[in-house]
């Protein structure tokens, strides 16, 4: 019997590959954490996130020592945090993945410079057609481009890994939206902190939360 803590990670499908990669990079054994993912499509319907997380926690919380929920606040209007409190679980810091990948300082710098920034991560670059083009109905109604993006100037690709193929795909995505591509290597940011800490059985400490004014 080993005495390692039993860790459960319930995450947005958009983070699945990143979490597995981090596990390897951190040298954690494959069975160090149990990973369960929810559909990434919940991004567009955030009211589904908290109930889905709760239904897993309800069944499984007692089987684990520590639970990390791989979501930001994600527009759940406080519902996700209420579930976490009820089941003694923690989540990733910040409002959304763009900020926990880039860190508040870089995120704020980008927004200060150009508020009309639309963010992509590795996952979103790979799944741009499904989540952005189809998800927003731009395939069916191309004329809606302006209704969505007339306030935007840049696509900001916050890369987790340096990959020229993905960079090219991001450039194509920016083109598709008629926006300029800005490339920033971000890495995994607070996601790495969270995985490492959770695997040790310690609730992650991300330092000072940043409240934007």
């Amino acid at each position: 019997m080993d005495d390692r803590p039993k860790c459960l990670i319930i995450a947005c499908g958009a983070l699945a590959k990143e979490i597995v990669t981090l596990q390897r990079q951190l040298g954690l054994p494959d069975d160090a954490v149990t990973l369960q993912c929810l559909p990434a499509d919940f991004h567009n319907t955030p009211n589904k996130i908290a109930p889905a997380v709760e239904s897993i926690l309800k069944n499984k919380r007692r089987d684990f020592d520590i639970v990390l929920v791989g979501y930001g606040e994600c527009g759940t209007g406080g519902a996700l945090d209420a579930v976490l409190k009820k089941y003694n679980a923690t989540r990733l810091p910040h409002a959304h993945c763009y900020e926990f990948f880039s860190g508040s300082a870089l995120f704020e710098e980008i927004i200060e410079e150009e508020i009309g920034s639309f963010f992509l991560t590795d996952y979103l670059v790979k799944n741009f057609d499904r989540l952005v083009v189809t998800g927003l109905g731009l395939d069916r109604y191309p004329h809606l481009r302006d209704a969505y993006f007339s306030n935007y100037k840049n696509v900001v690709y916050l890369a987790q890994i340096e990959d020229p193929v993905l960079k090219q795909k991001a450039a194509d995505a920016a083109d598709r939206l008629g926006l300029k591509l800005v490339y920033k290597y971000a890495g995994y940011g607070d996601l790495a902190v969270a995985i490492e800490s959770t695997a040790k059985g310690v609730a992650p400490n991300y330092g000072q939360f940043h409240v934007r004014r």
Partner: protein
Amino acid sequence: MSDDEIILNDLNDGDLVEQMKDDLYDGMAKEVHEGTQILLDRGWDANQILSDALVEGMRIVGIDFRDGILFVPEVLQCADAMKGGMGLLRPILAESENSASTGTYVIGTVKGDIHDIGKNLVGMMLEGAGFEVIDLGINNPVENYLEAIDKHRPNILGMSALLTTTMPYMGVVIEELDKRGILKELPVMVGGAPLNQEFADAINATSYGRDAAMSAELAKALVGKNS
């Protein structure tokens, strides 16, 4: 174009209004425009076309959006269709003497936020309810609201926020209005998907608008013009 066989002009008034609501739901801007023109030609009052066909159609769209039956792109199509009819009615409404404005409504998305689809929809329904809508657009610091209040003397101020990080700024604006003694006389409505009544209460907003149709009703009630 699946409804090619339906000749709108052949329908009686009641059926035509029903058909227009269906067409609006299906995002058929051309058909809604045509139906609006037919009703005008038949001598309908512009206000009545607006409320019975367009606003009522959009109210149904709002319910199905809330219930997850329609999604954002479909709602945008419906909004386009409604605009198709509004384009015809607006000049008539502006000219007619008996359509005194319900009131003036200043609306804008708060600083740091550039989501505007919901705000635009609310603006359209407010216009449908007879408000003169002053739209400040996106990313508004408190100064913009103050300036607009000074200039337009609105009956209501509305703020929209879709990000967890920008919601608190609504509270900042309300505090400033309070400090300046404006809040006593000016009702403030707030809205946006991540908000709820509890949050609206916490920041001392007058009311929280869950969707566009309900927001228009609440606004009418606030100016004492509820039918």
